[in-house]
Structures are given as C-alpha cells and as structure tokens.
C-alpha cells in the first residue's frame, strides 16, 4: 500500500520525462497534477485506514534486497510518518498547481517535481537506515536542477550552495548510520526504535551530535542555515514551496526518527542544550527577518525561526510538546506554502520583491486585492493568531515545554511576538498605502493563480478551528516516543506496551 506513494510519482516522472517534445506544457502540467492528485487521494485513503490507537508502525512492507549490505526494502508508517506523508502529497499537488502553465522545459520540470515527491515519501516511510539514506539523497539532484534551471538571477550560485550543504548533510548522516550499525554490531540496517541504547552513553552522544548536525543543516538550524535564504529566494515559487514545506520537514523528521528515536537517552541528556539551540534559532530567524528588505527573504528567515519551535518541542520531551512539534511541521508547511505562493504571484505581477518598491496592493481595482488579503491571512497564521493552524501548533509546543524549559519557551513566545513585528512591516509596506500612479499598471490576477492560496487558506482555517484534525494522528506515536525515553526510575518501555488509557491522557506520563 505504501509503495504506491513512492513508485507512482517516480513512474509518473519517467513517463512525463519521455513524452514527445510536441506535447504542450499545459498537458504535461495536467498530467503531473493528475498523478499527484491520485497520490493525494491514496494518501487520504491511508489516513482513513490508519489505526489511531496504535502507536507502533502500520502498513509494513518488506522485500529482501541486498542482504549482504543489510539493505532491504522495508516500509512502514506511524503517526509521525503519516502526517508528513500527508503534507508531502498535499504540498506536491499545491506546488504543481502553483506552477506556471507556460513553464520552460515542462517535461523535465514536472518529472523532477514528481521524482522529489516520490523520494521524500520514500524517506518518510523507509524502515531501513540505508534505504532512508538512498531516498534522502535521491531528492538532491532533482532539487539542484529545479533551482539551477528555473531559478532567479543568482540561481547557479544558490543551487551549488544548496548542493554542497546538502551533500555534507548526507555525508554526516551516512557516517552516523554506519557508526551506529558498526559499533552496535547490528546485522543489518533495519530501523528499531531505541536501537542505539545498548551503546555507551558517550558514543551515543557522539553519534547523536553527528546526526543532529547532518539533519540540522537540512532543517536548517542556526548556524547551518546560510544556504537557506539564497536558495529559497532564487528558487521559483513552486520549488520554494517544496523546499520550505517538505524538504525542511525531512530534516525535522530525521531528528525525530533517528535522533530522538534511536538515542532517547542521549537525547534527554542533550535536551537542555537543544532547547537553548532552538531558542537561539527562533530569535535569530525573527531578528534577521525584521532586517530584510526583500519580502521573499523575509519569509525565508521566518522559516528558520519557525523551525526552531519544532526543535524546542522535541527537546521538551513531553507528549504535548511533541504533538505540538509534529503539528507545527504540518502547520508551518502549509503556512509557508501559502506565503511563498503569494510572494511568487506578487513578484510575477509587480516585478519586484522590494519592500521599498511595493505599496498599496490592497487597492481594490488596480492592486492585487485578493492576493493581498490572502497574504494578510497567511501572515496572521504565521504569527500564531488564534483560529488559524499556526496557533494550535505553537500553543501546544509552549504549553508542553514551559514546565520543562521555561526560559527557552518564553524566548519562543517572544519570537512569535517578533513574527508579528516583521509581518506587520511586510503587510504595512506591501499591502497598505497608495499605489504609485506612474508604475502601478499590473496585470490582473487569474483565478488559477489564486486557487492554490484559496485551498491552503481553507486548510489553515479548518485546522485552526478543528485542531483535533491536526493533532490526533500523531498523539499515540508521540506519547510512545516520550515513553521510550529512560527517566531516573524507568528504563525504556517498549512502545507497544502502552495502553489506550495512557494515550488518551498523555500528560499523566509527564512526571
């Protein structure tokens, strides 16, 4: 069942890639949308089949592959993988919808996007460390091409920078995996939660740090973030949606699954440092965003800050904070997608992303009134206004982490305040004020250009007022992950030993 999520996009990518050149771009786009739409429907079906009370892995698939290497085709999903697979399928479809109907070299473009989608789904589902690594590296080349061919003016520079950083990230992760398997003497690379527990604590800490840096580059966390602003700014809107919405989550997923999941004990030792690291990222992202003059760069820096919340929740190690973190991955993905899409439309229509040039876009007839209104909504969601998806996730994180790390949590709260600051700057300059009568002859916004944002806005609203649809998928999994962390008087409890009653009252386990 899970293989469909991986292979349908990859086969689809191959088919689109080998279409004759005479096929018009619009047809290729529709083909990609159809394939991605089927994947999305399949994902929705998986959601309906998912057993919410089971905290373990479901829908397992196993196929022996290269057994001498310990590399087998092993797939499964738990609550964490489920929501991220859902996010991946949804945002891939949105990114395709957000792409221009007249993209150059459409066959390559759309097949690369589908390839990325399949690769990312594979990484979320892989239950074998080497298989994860393969999928993790698989998206590298397509992304490099997507940035370097369809990007902005400095796309070559941005793409190479992205490539180098991600390659180093991959090398560190591979080193971490190899070290883990060799040192623990495991027979193969199959993933088991708590599989690093048997190692001495120092070794655990060492391997965890290697993995944290590897995934920290991908998320990215300060100070490994310097590739992000250039890459996000130079990539076209649909690619930025994929980068910020999905690829960053792959890093966060790696931290959860392979950091916290494999080394729970070392994780709990590092947790205070991680919380401080998260707080630094949050503040740095927000401050840097305030200083920007380019709205896309501003949104890119906001992403760094918001990914910090995810780490904060993970460091706190309470079920509530962990659920919050996983929810934040989804909420941030959707909110970032709407922001990048809208910024992309503004850039395309106005021809500028400069705060000093943009003005008065809320003008009802000559401006981009609908796009500006949606931008205000997206900014409100990002700043954590209640009733929108961002609030739910951030509130859960703060609620769950305050008892453990009060100071970093308060710094995080200040960070949401700063989010409001830079978004007010952005909205005030971009949407309000007067249009310049000398320059403001922008083309009209078509319905197709509004559609992705309208869908995303609908989801943001829905998850904001119906938060259980955001959090219920990962509750059992995150409770089990927390339970697996050895505390002073308790050594690892197998996740399967949890009863439904414990799942239903996750806070009870906190002490």
């Amino acid at each position, binding site marked *: 069942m899970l293989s469909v999520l991986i292979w349908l996009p990859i086969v689809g990518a191959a088919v689109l890639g080998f279409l004759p050149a005479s096929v018009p771009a619009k047809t290729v786009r529709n083909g990609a949308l159809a394939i991605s739409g089927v994947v999305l429907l399949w994902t929705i079906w998986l959601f309906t089949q998912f057993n919410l009370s089971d905290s373990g892995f479901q829908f397992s698939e196993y196929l022996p592959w290269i057994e001498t290497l310990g590399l087998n085709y092993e797939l499964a999903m738990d609550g964490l993988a489920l929501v991220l697979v859902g996010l991946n399928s949804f945002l891939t479809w949105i990114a395709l919808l957000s792409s221009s109907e007249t993209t150059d070299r459409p066959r390559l473009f759309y097949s690369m996007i589908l390839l990325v989608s399949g690769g990312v789904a594979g990484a979320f589902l892989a239950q074998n460390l080497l298989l994860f690594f393969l999928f993790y590296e698989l998206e590298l080349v397509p992304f490099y091409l997507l940035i370097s061919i369809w990007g902005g003016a400095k796309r070559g520079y941005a793409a190479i920078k992205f490539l180098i950083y991600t390659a180093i990230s991959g090398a560190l992760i591979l080193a971490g995996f190899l070290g883990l398997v060799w040192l623990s003497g495991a027979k193969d690379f199959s993933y088991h939660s708590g599989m690093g527990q048997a190692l001495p604590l120092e070794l655990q800490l060492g391997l965890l740090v290697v993995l944290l840096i590897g995934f920290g580059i991908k998320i990215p966390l300060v100070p490994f973030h310097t590739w992000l602003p250039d890459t996000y700014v130079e990539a076209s809107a649909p690619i930025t949606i994929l980068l910020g919405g999905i690829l960053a989550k792959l890093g966060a997923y790696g931290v959860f699954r392979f950091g916290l999941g494999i080394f729970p004990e070392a994780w709990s030792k590092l947790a205070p440092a991680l919380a401080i690291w998260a707080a630094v990222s949050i503040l740095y992202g927000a401050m840097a965003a305030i200083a920007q003059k380019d709205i896309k760069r501003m949104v890119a820096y906001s992403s760094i800050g918001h990914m910090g919340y995810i780490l904060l929740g993970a460091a706190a190690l309470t079920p509530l904070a962990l659920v919050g973190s996983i929810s934040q991955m989804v909420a941030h993905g959707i909110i970032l997608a709407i922001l990048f899409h809208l910024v992309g439309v503004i850039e395309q229509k106005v021809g500028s992303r400069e705060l000093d040039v943009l003005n*008065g876009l809320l003008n*009802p007839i*000559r401006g981009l009134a609908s796009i500006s209104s949606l931008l205000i909504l997206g900014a409100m969601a990002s700043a954590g206004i209640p009733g929108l998806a961002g609030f739910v996730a951030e509130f859960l994180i703060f609620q769950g982490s305050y008892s453990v790390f009060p100071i970093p949590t308060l710094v995080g709260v200040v960070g949401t305040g700063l989010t409001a600051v830079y978004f007010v700057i952005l909205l005030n300059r971009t949407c309000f004020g*007067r249009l310049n*009568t000398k320059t403001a002859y922008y083309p009209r916004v078509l319905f197709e250009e509004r559609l992705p944002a309208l869908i995303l806005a609908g989801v943001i609203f829905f998850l904001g007022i119906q938060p259980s649809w955001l959090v219920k998928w990962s509750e059992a999994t995150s409770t089990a992950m927390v339970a697996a962390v050895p505390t002073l008087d308790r050594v690892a409890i197998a996740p399967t030993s949890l009863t439904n009653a414990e799942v239903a009252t996750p806070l009870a386990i906190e002490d």
Partner: protein
Amino acid sequence: MTATLVSPSSTKLPPSNHEFAEIIHRLEAGGAMLPDTPENLMQIIGLYKAYAVPMDFYWRDLLYIAEQVFLNPLPFFKYFISQEYLDRQNHYAGDQADLRVWRGTGSAHPELLEFMQKGELKSKLPRLLHHWYHDRINMEFAEECMRAMLWHGRDMGMGQFDAYLDSEEYRQNADRAIKAYFKGNPVMMAMYKAFPDMFLEQVRQMSYYSNLGLFWEVMAPVFFEMSDLYDEGKIASVPDAMNFLVNGIFAIAGRPIYHHVYINGECYEIIPKSKGFMWLYEAALPYVEAVFYRTSPFRGTKSYNAQAGQVPAEQKDFHYGVLYADKFPVGTAGIPPTLLAQDMLHFLPPYLVEYYQQHCRGEDDMLVQLAVSFQRSMYCVTSAVIQALRTALLYPLDDPNPEHLMANRKFFEAQLDRFKRPEARLRDIQTPDYR
C-alpha cells in the same frame, strides 16, 4: 469654430521660463492644457456624454431636494425624485428652451429613464430594492460637490451669493419658509425656537442644492450637444471642444441663480431671481474653485493626520479636487469618486467601452480608466474656464500689443502655478500612458 483662438504670440514674446512653458505656449496659441490628440478628444467627449446622463438626474434631484424635500427631518426618500421633476423641461434643451443648447429632449434623458426603470440588474424590481443595492444614480457624489461649495463658499469670497446667505434679508426669507414648512408641527417649531441657527444653516445648504442644480441644468445639455457634435464630426479637436465650452460659458453667463421652495403649493422665494445672481459668477466659478481645485479629503482614499500637518490649516490650501485627485483608489466602497465613476460606467458610449477593453485590465478596471479620462476631461473644462477668464479680464490672444500679450502670459503662468504641486495631475495627463 475651429482655430478661432490661434495666436501668433509665440513670435512676439520670448519663450516662457515657466515649468509648464510648453503648456503655456499651447494656451497662448488657443489650445488647452490637455494635449490635442484624437485619443484625448475621444476620451473627453465620451466622458462628457457619460457624465451628462447622471448629471441630468443630479440637477433634477438637487432642485427637487431644494424645492420640495427642503427641511424634512427624515429625508429617506430624497433620492426618489417625483415624476414632475423628471418631466421638468430643461431651460437649455428641447422645444421649450430659453436658449436651445442641445437639440434633444427637454425632459429627462431617455437613457436615464431606462436605467431608472431597470438598473444594471436589467430587471424591473421595486425601486427600493434597486436603491438599497446601489443600483441607481448615486446622489452622494452630487451632494459632496454641493457641500464642497457650501463649505468653501465663505472662504473663497467669490461673487455675492455666499455673502447674501449671511444677510438679514436672507434670514427673514428663510424664517418665513421654515415657519411655513413646520406649521402645525409643535415639536419642530420648538426645536427651531431652541436652535434657530441650526435650521438657518440647513436652509443655506438647501440654497446650495439649488445653486448646484441650476448650474448643472446648464452643463448637462452642453455636454450632450458636444457629444452629438463629435458624433457628427463637427468637433474634431481638443481646442474645438474647449472653444465650444468657452462660447457656452458666455452664452449662458447671465442665467439667474435663485432658490425657491414650494410649501403646500405656495412658492417661497428664499433667494429671489430679482437679486440678479448670475450663473457665471455665483455658480460656475465657485463650483470650479470648490470642486475642481479644493473639495476635501474624501473619506476612504487616504487617512489624513491633521496633527502631523497633513491637512493644511487654511482652506484655500486644500487641493483634493479632481485636478489633483489620485484616481487609483476609485472602486473603494463609499468614496464619492467611486460613486460618480459607477454612475458614468452605465452610460459610456460604445467606442469608449471598446477602448477601455483594449487597455490595462480591460473590463476589470474600467472604473479607474474612466475616472482618469474624466480627469482629462475636467482639465479641458478648466482650460475653457481659464480661457474664458482671460477673454473677460484681459486681452485677445492675437492682440498686436506685446504688453497685452505679456499680461496674458502672466495670467496663464499664475493659473498654472497652482499645478506645480506634486499631486497635481497636469504632468500626468500630458502623456497617454497615464490611464
């Protein structure tokens, strides 16, 4: 009437050093502030026509309010004009005209009557539903113009009309009308006793309703006739259009401005015709100054911060009129320029609809495009006023005396000084790219 005002002055005077030297030379040669291009001509004439139809409603309803609704404390139906006022014969159109400016009908324009029946919904709903849906002629714009004249009137110090509103004679006339109007209404009579000035001020406002109504009664047929002449090919350039306006201004200058109120069938002359107030000095010139130049910062287009000095302390420094206005916010709910643009949109001639569809966002931003054309057309009207003032106060453009020509130039330069302000649109309308 082509080229009647062309002057050889450019050969007799050295070139002007004014910022708008090119425009001043054009005015000296008998041209307008608006460049003479077929595109400009088409826009301004099309807009005159689109403006004249709602204007035909404006003047009738303004007079209806001034003469019939008067001091009704709850004037819910003041925009529901009576049939009598729709049938009322324009003094400058139709068979019964005093001076037939327009060859068409003297009662309400057929397009206006059709629109009043069906609205843009094209369905015969009860009038009240059309009204609530704003599917109607929006009198709010006309009232905004009236208020601009009322509010700036005292400060402008033009003519005798506004000064008369403060006279004892006016006070007595108003008092008689107020007492007659509220006869048998002890509540309102008590109110009048308690707050006589408030009622007097309301009557002054009614007098301005009448003033503006009488002004526009003239302008509607002038614009209709210009549109017809353009369709017949008899107005072929922007100076032609301007000269028609100049001639019109002089032909009608003496039309009396008065205020009569009808209470129970009896006529109360609050401002009698015998006062001799003339259309040109008591209505046209104050109107141009108050509405084209000054007005007030329209609600909704911009928030002005008076504490930050964004609103001038002196009323004479107000420059928010159509010659200065930012037309891009047109479309914003509730602002009078939007309501006017909405009114004109219903009556655009087909050639302008087609023209707008080819530019900018076509159908989507027609409201802004026509508002910009309207601005161009008002620059043509203002040019006519400037030329008319020059004719009345100074010398012909082909005067052989260089000193006279220099006096003319000084006059033009002084007029154009008012457009040196950064927000003035005179620079913009020189190019076709401003639309």
